[in-house]
């Protein structure tokens, strides 16, 4: 068949173009380490990669959320544990003071001790994470409990609200990590001057106990023992409830770690180049390019003109 001179040159050009293009693409894969460098490299794979990327971002955010949640729950748990211990100590003191062998002066001393316990519990009830109060409902910037010594008798007011602070730890999963303080310490809507009222309120109980001790009132002290049992029971429930929530967060944390690993692996499978394969591709393209150059150079040298 007749072959025109132009065809020869065109062939060389087209083939070199093609091999160069393939070589550039292969070297792009090697240098970027990515199989998908543009949307069109693998559109279906890319949609999956985009999906995985936003899932990963979401999961990483949830990890942060859980870390915040755990810091709240831990702070809450430790505060509740300490309150539990103080209340147990108070009860022991009560049992001791209810004993008929104790005199008025011992009981007066014990009243000072109870006052100290009250203030410790008050401080623990105002526990903060960062600058936020965890037992204040969502009124997190206001100290929830405040001892009003000016009023007579003294009273402890609740300044928080009834909505516990919650966090998002997954699609549609909100966990209450803060608490409504009234749930722990009892509400403050009763007549503080009536010694019989507000028996469910921890602070009222301690204030009543204190005045019973001051007044050497054995009946009052004995009543306080009963009340303290209720408080201790309640705090105990709160502690185990907090533990359950912590476990819930831990489980979710584990799930998130698995998801993260899984997402990262799948993303890498879709997006990252198999470097060995990519380097081999590049090398074979380079060889092809060299061969094309060599054969083109040889063929283009030949012409009848040289022999005339």
């Amino acid at each position, binding site marked *: 068949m007749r072959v025109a001179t*132009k065809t020869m040159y065109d062939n060389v050009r087209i083939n070199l173009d093609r091999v160069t293009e393939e070589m550039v693409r292969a070297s792009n894969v090697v240098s970027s380490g990515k199989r998908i460098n543009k949307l*069109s490299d693998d559109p279906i794979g890319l949609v999956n990669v985009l999906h995985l990327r936003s899932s990963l971002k979401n999961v990483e955010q949830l990890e942060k*959320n859980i870390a915040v949640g755990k810091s709240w729950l831990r702070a809450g748990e430790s505060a509740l544990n300490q309150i539990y211990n103080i209340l147990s100590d108070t009860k022991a003191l009560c049992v001791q003071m209810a004993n008929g062998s104790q005199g008025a002066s011992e009981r007066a001393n014990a009243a000072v001790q109870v006052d100290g316990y009250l203030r410790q519990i008050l401080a623990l009830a105002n526990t903060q994470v960062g600058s936020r109060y965890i037992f204040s409902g969502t009124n997190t910037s206001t100290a929830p409990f405040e001892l009003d010594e000016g009023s007579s008798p003294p009273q402890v007011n609740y300044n928080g609200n009834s909505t516990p*602070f919650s*966090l998002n730890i997954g699609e549609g999963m909100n966990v209450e990590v803060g608490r409504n303080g009234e749930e722990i310490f009892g509400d403050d809507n009763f007549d503080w001057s009536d010694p019989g009222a507000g028996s469910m309120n921890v602070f009222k109980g301690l204030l009543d106990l204190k005045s019973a001790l001051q007044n050497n009132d054995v009946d009052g002290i004995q009543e306080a023992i009963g009340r303290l049992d209720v408080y201790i029971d309640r705090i105990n429930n709160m502690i185990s409830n907090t533990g359950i929530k912590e476990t819930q967060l831990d489980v979710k944390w584990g799930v998130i770690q698995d998801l993260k690993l899984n997402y990262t692996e799948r993303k890498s499978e879709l997006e990252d180049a198999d470097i060995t394969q990519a380097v081999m591709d590049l090398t074979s393209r380079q060889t092809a390019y060299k061969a094309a150059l060599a054969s083109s150079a040889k063929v283009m040298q030949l012409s009848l003109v040289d022999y005339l």
Partner: protein
Amino acid sequence: MSGIGLLLTTAKDALLAQQLALDVVSHNVANVNTPGYSRQIPQLATRQPAPYAGMMLGRGVNVEEVVRNTDAFIETRLQQRKTDLNSLEEQEVYMSALEAIFNESSERSLSTTLSEFWNAWHDLANNPSGNSERGIIYERGTLLCQAFNSVHADLEQLTSQLNLSIEAAVGDINELSQKIADLNQQILSGRINGNPNDLLDKRNQLITELSQYMDIQHYENEDGSLTVTTGRGYVLVTGANSYQLSYDDGAVRWESSGAANRDITDTIEGGKLGGWLDVRDEVIPGYEADLNELAKAIIWEVNRIHTQGVGTQGFTSIIGSYGVTNAGAALQSSGLDFEDKIIDGSFHIWVYDSNGDVVGSGPLTINIDADVTSLNALVTDINNQAGGNITASVDANGRLQLSAATGYTFAFSEDTSGVLAALGINTFFTGSSPTDGDYAKFIEVNPVVEQNKAYIAAGKIDSSTGEMAEGDNANVLDMINLSCSEISMNHYHYERGTGALPPEPVSTTLDDYLHTLEGSIGIKSQSVTRSREYTEVIVNQLERTRDNISAVSIDEEMANIIKYQHAYAAAAKLISTGDEMFKTLLDIR
């Protein structure tokens, strides 16, 4: 006629013929690299024999004509395929520009900024009273808006670039038509002196150039002139006349001989022009509509949730970001951007005094009957209930305006009607575009939020006490759920000539809608590239076939040189032989 005389004449003719053949060969060699040149062949033929001594005696050689070696079928096929290739090549260029616009590897890409926008809400949920978290939401929101704005601007710029290219191409087409008409004229007058081969080649070359711009048809008339029409038969060149195209406001028009001209934009199919028009009228409008749909959905859905909540302080005054065109008409048909989203329902306005205590026994409850209540009625209702503590009015732009008396503040809750989001009261985003739906161009963070980040509505008002707690994140938790909720949206497709096709409804999360949009750009781009590669192979094959028929082979020409040179030498030898024969005769004494 004497024998020796005949010999000399034959030899002379042979010399001339070989010389002419060599001329043709030299022309071929000289044009080995000329694009579109077709190899020319001297047609050598024996002269008419003459009777001599009772026999028919040959009288030598003659160059009858010089012909071009072409195959019209291959040429036409090649032209058509090149038209397709040019169209695909241009589409490929613009698709890769589109891919770059939606650059997914960049940190500023839409999907990255959207993910980060949601994450910023998570951070606010973790710390609703934090000022820096509020600042970050504003910043991420702004980045998201900027990403939308810049993608939209890039798409518009692409369209205007395409229009410039189309306008320039129309000028080139007119010039080419004119040149072809001129060549027709020259060929008509050149025919008298044999084949005007080079003019034919030149005309072919011009046709090839013209077919790069658009699909054309052409046929040769009996007189050798060429008639050229567009693919759908609008005449561009006939004989020595050419008809011009004109470009006017996005449309390509055909200027007929009559006064009327016709819009032929949608009939142009191949070539660069066809490719550009495909991108301009089908590809870009589809993606732009999808982008606007996404921006619109984000504006509405985020605002809808935002209006349910409250920031860390109440408003002293507020102006809506959307205005009605008719304050007397029912809200559903009042000319608001999102009027169709308003449904029957109600919302609460809580009014607080300077101590932050709720005024009155509870909130004002404003009832909305979407196809009855007008903005004016809404204003009257608020004013009647508020007793002067807050004043509602409609400003000159049809926007709802609320302002509290000195010392008073107000806030909103429990909007079941969507009217607050539609009026742009207590919203996070603004962005309105009633005429062409360019929400992606106008999406912005509400300046109210920009000026005071305390208005970012993280919490909700306690419906029994009217209290707003700084640490409340109930509304943000709803916002977070939005990122994984399925929303009814549409995908849009366009077709040239028809315009917008019926939208394709989908129910998807906002993130996935964006991913699908970006994926569809990749798919389109990939398919254009594949078609281009396939067409390129065909064009190369056809070109090779054409070149094998028509292009010059140096080796062949070299061989021809030797052939004609030897023939020339032989003819010269004939002359010297004739000369010797004469001498021999003359030497006889």
